[in-house]
């Protein structure tokens, strides 16, 4: 069986900076895969390249046989990949409803979009209470929920999550991770980028450790949790 997402020998530059230096990984249908690593290891860069915001200088990203490095960002969303960016990136002046509707920008059928919105409200009831409020007036946790709801509005088969726990209280982090597991149980594959390695490894099937633009380690998440290198470097134990 071929993987749903297959990244091979990915090289990405920011000007002269060689940010990704040959990243390889894959994600199978239905999995939660996490990319962990320090600041600047290339985790967000990898997600931005998958979404088409950055173009690689070398390498390929195959999603169900389509090479994403050759298609537009718009097309990538309609192919079924959605990203919840780092720092939530809510459209602050727009209402909660408008933010969610923008998540469904590539979809046409108004009735189906409404159904998706109801599903988002079922997962995040707080959003429904604030439906006509500008996104910028929401609390940090609510904004993270809005960002995730917006990401789900395109009905993705693969959801890319960039640091969903950033800046949230431990209680909220628990809740967000519980919802990630729930989203995955409903059939959406997840690629999770996290600083909070302990949390990420606790819900992931498999994990890749990035170090200065390359994959340093990979394996089943439960195994990585026990590896001494991972423990000292990323789990602080």
């Amino acid at each position, binding site marked *: 069986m071929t993987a749903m997402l297959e990244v091979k020998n990915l090289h990405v530059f920011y000007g002269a900076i060689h940010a990704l230096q040959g990243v390889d990984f894959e994600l199978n249908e239905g999995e939660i895969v996490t990319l962990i690593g320090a600041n600047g290891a290339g985790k967000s860069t990898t997600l931005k390249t998958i*979404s088409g*915001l950055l173009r690689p200088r070398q390498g390929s990203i195959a999603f169900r046989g389509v090479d994403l490095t050759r298609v537009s960002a*718009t097309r*990538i*969303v309609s192919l079924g990949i959605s990203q919840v960016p780092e720092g939530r990136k809510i*459209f*602050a*002046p*727009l209402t909660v409803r408008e933010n969610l509707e923008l998540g469904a920008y590539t979809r046409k059928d108004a009735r189906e979009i409404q159904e998706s919105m109801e599903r988002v409200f079922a997962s995040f009831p707080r959003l429904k209470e604030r439906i006509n409020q500008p996104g910028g007036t929401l609390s940090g946790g609510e904004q993270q929920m809005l960002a995730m709801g917006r990401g789900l509005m395109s009905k993705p088969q693969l959801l890319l999550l960039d640091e969903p726990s950033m800046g949230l209280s431990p209680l909220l982090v628990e809740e967000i991770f519980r919802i990630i597991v729930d989203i995955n149980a409903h059939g959406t594959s997840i690629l999770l980028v996290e600083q909070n390695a302990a949390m990420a490894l606790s819900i992931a099937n498999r994990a890749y450790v990035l170090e200065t633009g390359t994959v340093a380690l990979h394996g089943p998440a439960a195994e990585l949790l026990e590896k001494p290198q991972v423990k000292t470097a990323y789990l602080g134990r």
Partner: protein
Amino acid sequence: MQKLLNRIAVSVRKSPVIWAIGVLLLAWLAGRARQNPVLFAQFLVDGIRLGFVYALVALGYTMVYGIVRLINFAHGDVFMIGAFAAFFATTRYHWSFVPAMVLAMVVCAFLSVVIERIAYKPLRDAPRISALITAVGMSFFLEYFTALNFVFTPNFIVFAPQPLQFKSWNVLGVTVSNIMFVIIAVGTICLVALYYLVYRTKLGKAMRAVAWDKPTARLMGIDVDLVITFTFALGAALAGVGGMLYVVAYPQIRTFLGVMPGLKSFIAAVFGGIGSIPGAFIGALTIGMVETLAAGYLSSTLRDTIVFSILIIVLLLRPTGLFGEAAKEKA
């Protein structure tokens, strides 16, 4: 209401001199208005007419700034091209009012899209000053190229015969004309349509998303370049309407006619808060009225000085203008 009063109180404490001058000016105006209310009403009516033309141009400045953070100084010259398009359509080919206006809109939209593609788009990731200088260059190019003898010539051309027969009535001593009604009606239709487009349609939502955060808009699957191009076209089409209305009201045309209305509309947009659509409208009406009142009560030679002083005062006191967005917070 309480909040507004508080804000005014803070502002009075911060700059009492400016407020004192403002109150004195208003008192002086009220005195003049009592002396001759009919004349005052006439100035106001003329100011509103002028303000609506400025509003159509100011909207283009504010929308383009909102979406790409560029002051498109060539916008006033696109307005001029709209005036010429309407002029040729009506005087040479005897088109009637509405088709000529549609032509002006299409010509301006097309021109603006071409300008954006060749002059601004390649500089989108360059420092903002580069695009600004390019816009100034584009403005001069349009003015001086069209002033060549084999294009429109540098001379004034009288806009006659007019697409509208001028008619005027006397209402309680105030002269109102059919042209004024047309300007206000067309201006209002454009404003309402624009408001609907920006705040009630999917495309408008995409425009606001792109204005706020381009990379995230792309993550939603929005074609950011297309939305930017559309915004330029839309602003230019409104300027085309404005250009036609302007020369219908002041029927003398030449290739530099866009300079002053362009600059004043820019001031109107800054006064209202650049990037804000309601701000551009309120700012334009204010500038239109200030201009006619200044010309009427002081002197027409001082008129432009006063309008440009407004720009300096706004930039000193409240650079974000009346409805300006506070600096975008960074997460």
